[in-house]
């Protein structure tokens, strides 16, 4: 589905991402973990076009994504959520989803496109993201957990094929984290998902495979159980 | 049409000195603006009106007492106090909002400018030179007052330069401008540093206004013309760079002085502004790099 090969990013003298290979198989949930500064978010930023790699290829659906802008990568079907929730504080939940559906479905990009009625798509996405009762709420009035769901809902509304979740449980309490986990479970199979997360329990529970980064390089890619048993990984985390 | 005057050795020196004195006035305005921007990130549109107040204040005192020097001191002190009051009472609240900061200072500038227009009308005023005689410099006869302006500019440049690089206050200004939150964890009262810097910058603008009164005529919108130029100087010099605003001000002074030989003054202005636009697009940090006060 999405294949990353030899991905490298240098900032001046620092190598933030070092020759990373990563393969997302269709329909899998793939965890990406590692200590701070391991290069997780940089990797996500390279895939989404926020940063351009020093070298390496990112292949999606048979074409190379390197050099494309974030918006055109998004339109090709790669959606992302952010560590810090990104939303439009003064707009209703419905408007958020409307904007997300609109750009991904319209074919003629004209200013005067009044936009069709997307209420079916919006309803469906809102239900998946536990927001069906909040469609007319102004986003800034949502509790933090639901803002997180809104972030996720927008990505779903875009009808992406691949979704990159950057710390979807950050800043959430336990029950909200569980809800995020349920949402992710609901998505299993329909989407190809890469999830970057500090909450190791969540990543272990949900991932089909996990890639561990350390100092910008891949330490291992394996099943959750094997990763947990991996002595190298344990060393990295305990800093022994 | 414009006649191109011949450049002789004599008038070359005269033009260069004219450019130098003009550059020094621009420098006084630009350095204050640059300090305020470099530290606070505030686009201070009221800065020009402080210059106007400095000039008109001097005029008022001269009308009352006949003494230019007294006028200079009184107006600079009063405008500086006004700057202090403005910073503490109003501007302090909007530092986190660049848009409101720009609009707020724009509004304050407008009010001051119009208040001047109400009091003085829109006609222009001139102040006679307190040092009317000329002296011989490098073989040409040159007005003493303009030499005085050059001297004051040079002293201010040295003084502020020393303040920024040699004193405890300079260290704190550098630290605050560079990373405010770090300065705070080192125990620096950054709100106080903001106030001092704003007041200092305002004082420099008032000084520029008072000094320029005997050279150019004053009109209520004089401030706008100066800050437009000063903004562009600090872009080219590097926002927040003290050295940059000095060097670029002096260069602009020379460009204006000699540019007038070949082009109408307005064309010279257009060229300078166009150059600044290019800088904004392609080298927004200017010649002197990062916004750094303490060099």
């Amino acid at each position, binding site marked *: 589905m999405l294949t990353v090969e030899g991905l490298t990013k240098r900032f001046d003298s620092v190598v933030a991402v070092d020759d990373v290979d990563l393969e997302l198989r269709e329909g899998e949930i793939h965890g990406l*973990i590692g*200590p*701070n*500064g391991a290069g997780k978010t940089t990797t996500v930023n390279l895939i989404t076009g926020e940063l351009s790699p020093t070298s390496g290829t990112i292949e999606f659906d048979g074409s190379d994504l390197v050099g494309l802008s974030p918006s055109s990568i998004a339109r090709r079907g790669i959606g992302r959520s952010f560590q*810090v*929730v990104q939303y439009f504080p003064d707009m209703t939940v419905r408007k958020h989803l409307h904007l997300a559906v609109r750009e991904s479905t319209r074919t003629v990009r004209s200013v005067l496109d009044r936009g069709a009625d997307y209420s079916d798509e919006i309803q469906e996405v809102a239900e998946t993201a536990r927001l069906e009762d909040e469609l007319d709420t102004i986003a800034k009035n949502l509790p*933090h957990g639901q*803002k997180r769901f809104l972030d996720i809902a927008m990505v779903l509304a875009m009808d992406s094929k691949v979704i990159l979740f950057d*710390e979807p449980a*950050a*800043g959430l*309490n*336990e029950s909200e*984290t569980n809800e995020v986990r349920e949402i992710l479970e609901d998505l299993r199979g329909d989407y190809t998902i890469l999830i970057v997360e*500090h*909450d*190791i329990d969540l990543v*272990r529970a949900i991932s089909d495979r996990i890639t561990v980064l350390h100092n910008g390089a891949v330490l291992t890619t394996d099943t959750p159980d094997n*990763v*947990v048993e991996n002595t190298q*990984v*344990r060393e990295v*985390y*305990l*800093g*022994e | 049409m414009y006649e191109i005057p011949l450049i002789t050795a004599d008038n070359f020196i005269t033009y260069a000195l004219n450019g130098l004195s003009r550059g020094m006035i621009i420098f006084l305005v630009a350095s204050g603006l640059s300090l305020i921007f470099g530290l606070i990130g505030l686009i201070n549109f009221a800065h020009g009106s402080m210059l106007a107040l400095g000039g008109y204040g001097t005029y008022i005192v001269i009308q009352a007492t006949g003494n230019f020097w007294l006028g200079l001191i009184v107006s600079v002190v009063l405008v500086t106090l006004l700057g202090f009051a403005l910073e503490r009472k109003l501007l302090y609240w909007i530092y986190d909002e660049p848009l409101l900061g720009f609009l707020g200072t724009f509004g304050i500038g407008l009010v001051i400018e119009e208040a001047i227009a109400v009091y003085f009308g829109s006609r222009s005023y001139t102040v006679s030179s307190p040092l009317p005689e000329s002296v011989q410099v490098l073989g040409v006869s040159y007005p003493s007052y303009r030499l005085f302006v050059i001297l004051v500019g040079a002293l201010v440049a040295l003084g502020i330069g020393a303040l920024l690089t040699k004193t*405890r206050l300079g*260290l*704190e200004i*550098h*630290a605050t401008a*560079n*990373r405010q*939150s*770090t*300065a*705070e*964890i*080192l*125990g*620096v*009262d*950054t*709100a106080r540093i903001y106030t001092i810097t704003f007041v200092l910058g305002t004082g420099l603008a008032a000084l520029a206004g008072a000094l320029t009164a005997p050279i150019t005529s004053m009109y209520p919108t004089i401030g706008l013309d100066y800050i437009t130029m000063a903004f562009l100087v600090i872009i080219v010099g590097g926002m927040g760079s003290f050295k940059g605003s000095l060097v670029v001000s002096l260069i602009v002074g020379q460009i204006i002085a000699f540019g007038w030989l070949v082009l109408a003054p307005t064309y010279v202005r257009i060229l300078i502004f166009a150059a600044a636009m290019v800088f904004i697009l392609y080298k927004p940090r200017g010649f002197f790099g990062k916004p*750094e006060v*303490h*060099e």
Partner: protein
Amino acid sequence: MSELLSVDGLNAFYGDSQVLFDVSLSLDTNDVVGVFGRNGMGKTTLLNSLVNRIDRKTGTVTYGDRDISEWSTHEIIREGIAYVPEEREIYPALTVRENLDLALSSSVPDEVREDRIENVFGQFERLGERHDQRGGTLSGGEQQMLAIGRALVTDPDLLLLDEPTEGLAPVIIDDVVDILESLVTGDRSVLIVEQNIKRMLPLIDRGYMIQTGQIVDEGDSEYLAQEEIHEKYLTV
């Protein structure tokens, strides 16, 4: 021993996001206390909220017998608390000496000033050798020394250390731990947040475990040395 710092019911927020949930902890005079947890669990936020370097918080922070919850950062620092931030935050364009000088309040008289700085140079010879060098040209380990020196130069009563070993090469971590060892033996209170619990255990008297913004366990260094605890809160 008397209680020096006490934190009660602390909730901390960055923007909308709540990072700390009802955190309470305390530290006695001359105590060395550690707070351990994985990355992203709120350790740095905890220290930042103690010195009010954060968007919003609720709860109380008492220092000595004063409620400092609403004080501004520099006031808290001037009260005798020194803070070594995770990213060290050395001023790159200032020299080593200027970086140290900056941390000393302007009310400190010149002679004392010189003495204090010389003391730091006595403790960290490498800093003394490089006193005229700009902060940005120092190596990672030297920058960490400078960051610690910048805290010590004020002779603080309470030292807050944020991940002093983070991002350093193993050899340099040894140096830093040596330095920390020499610090904690004096009569000074220290609060350290770290991920690297094993290196810190010999230094601390007591410690807390933090997970997703909540204090989930606490105990003395012996208790915290148990493998099960590391298993549970620190490893993958």
